[in-house]
């Protein structure tokens, strides 16, 4: 039966950090595989076929970004990034290169475990997709392109729908500005970050109960956005 437990590969050079990750993930019922270097991590991802990979960005031998790229060449396994505060830019690069989410060091285990659960759940149902978003005050049907707020029909623009669909595809996980711009407006608009800002403001005004304190369309400053639903 042990093989049914999800396996998590931890690519981290600091033994003390591996120690509490091992203890905590193990206590939650995950099977933990550890790699102390980036090169070892890329190999272990191939041989152990984990259900999720946690990669530290600050590895001594190769850049964490290269580990993400190396794994993404052949695998869609969910990848979580551990980054330090000073690594803002490489964090965004790693996300753009295919990492699914991140946690900033120092982090509480509650936060990391929540990210792990979301990423595993997402991987399990990514083929099904999320077509209807049930929000606090509003409902959006992404397939039929209809939306209601407090029971009344409201109108969203085609771009607003596309933006929501892009966020919904990564429900609960962060989506970078660059990813949103490339997917919604096209690759030539990757640097027009003000487009996303303005459209997110519009969406919040239409869908959030309190647009200043959004519950669903959450900002990850300097990175992107995260769509949260109540499920």
């Amino acid at each position: 039966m042990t093989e049914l437990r999800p396996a998590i590969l931890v690519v981290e050079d600091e033994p003390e950090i591996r120690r509490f990750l091992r203890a905590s993930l193990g206590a939650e019922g995950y099977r933990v595989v550890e790699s102390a270097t980036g090169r070892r991590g890329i190999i272990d991802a191939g041989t152990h076929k984990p259900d999720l990979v946690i990669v530290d960005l600050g590895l001594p031998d190769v850049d964490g970004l290269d580990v993400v790229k190396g794994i993404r060449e052949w695998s869609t396994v969910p990848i979580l990034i551990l980054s330090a505060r000073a690594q803002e830019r490489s964090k965004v690069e790693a996300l753009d290169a295919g990492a699914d989410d991140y946690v900033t060091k120092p982090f509480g285990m509650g936060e990391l475990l929540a990210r792990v659960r979301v990423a595993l759940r997402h991987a399990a149902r990514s083929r099904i997709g999320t077509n209807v978003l049930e929000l606090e005050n509003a409902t959006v049907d992404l397939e039929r392109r209809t939306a209601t707020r407090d029971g009344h029909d409201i109108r969203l623009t085609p771009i607003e729908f596309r933006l929501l669909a892009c966020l919904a595809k990564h429900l609960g996980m962060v989506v970078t500005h660059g990813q949103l711009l490339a997917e919604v407006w096209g690759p030539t608009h990757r640097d027009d970050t003000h487009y996303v800002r303005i459209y997110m403001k519009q969406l919040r005004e239409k869908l959030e109960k309190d647009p200043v304190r959004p519950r669903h369309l959450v900002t990850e400053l300097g990175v992107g956005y995260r769509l949260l639903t109540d499920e």
Partner: protein
Amino acid sequence: MKAPRELIGYAWAAVATAAATVAGLAMAARFDLVNIAMVYLVSVVVIALRYSYGPAILASIASVAALDYLFVPPLGHFSVSDVQYLLTFVMVLVVALVISYLVESVRRQARAQSTLEVEAETERIRSTLLASISHDLRTPLAVIVGASSTLAESGERLSAEDRHALAASLFAQSSELTEHVAKVLQMTRFETGTIALAREWTTVGEIAGSVLNRLKERMAAHRLIVDLPNDLPLVRVDASLIEQALGNLLENGATHTPPGTVVRLSAQQSGDQLVVSVVDYGDGLPDGDVEQVFAKFHHRSTAGTGSGMGLGLAICRAIARLHGGNVRAERVPGGGAAFHLALPIEKPPTVPDEIFAT
């Protein structure tokens, strides 16, 4: 280039000698030669007091020459008939040198004094920093070492409740420590100028939303009123830094006012600036210059305990200035403090119009 002050000194030496000569010529009819020599001496003393050796020596030589040529017999010659006048000349020169020497040494002492004062000030800041670090970093460290060693050494003998409590305080204290260290590092980065702004067009609403989410628990005891007009222009800023600045202002408001009181966050356009204001209704700002709250390691209450390291507002101002803006503090009539974070508004970018879906 030669120091202009030196050149001006020589010019004044010439002027002073000329003035003494004019006065001497006017006095010649009715006064003794000794008194005329005194007039020259005064001019030499004035120059020696005001400027350094060079001008003083010039003034004394010129004075001696003029005195000799115009007033000491034989007139119109540099020769001297009475030897006692040579003594007069030497005395003038000696007075000039002595006074120059005295003035120079007084100046040197003053310079040394001010260097000492700068060093003392640096030392004072350093010891305040150390005191601050000692208190704000050591307290959480003491709890962390104590609680973790208790868990490591007698974990099994503790009740589950105690274990939880210790673990929770470990988490809380190390989180606090993380915040402190981050602030010290941040301030150091500002001071060494190693911060690169990642500027992007963004909305104040988004920054405010992010900071309100982060400080949800920290601000839970206060009544937070948010008033952000819908039509505020976009600003081109480093969103993470402005979020930090705004967070520091809100935390500052929450720290210095009793639970249950109102903290107000608002924003408005004022000319070519976007002004974000945080207003609290507590005890207000300390007496005297309101600017002092922006000094590093400043504590608004004299007790100054447990409310962080006094770096929040200094960091806030550094961030604002890095963006070409500023932060001002203001007393609120009836008690309370207002902080206004002003950011420059640039020409906002355009977004293509979109046809509505039907």
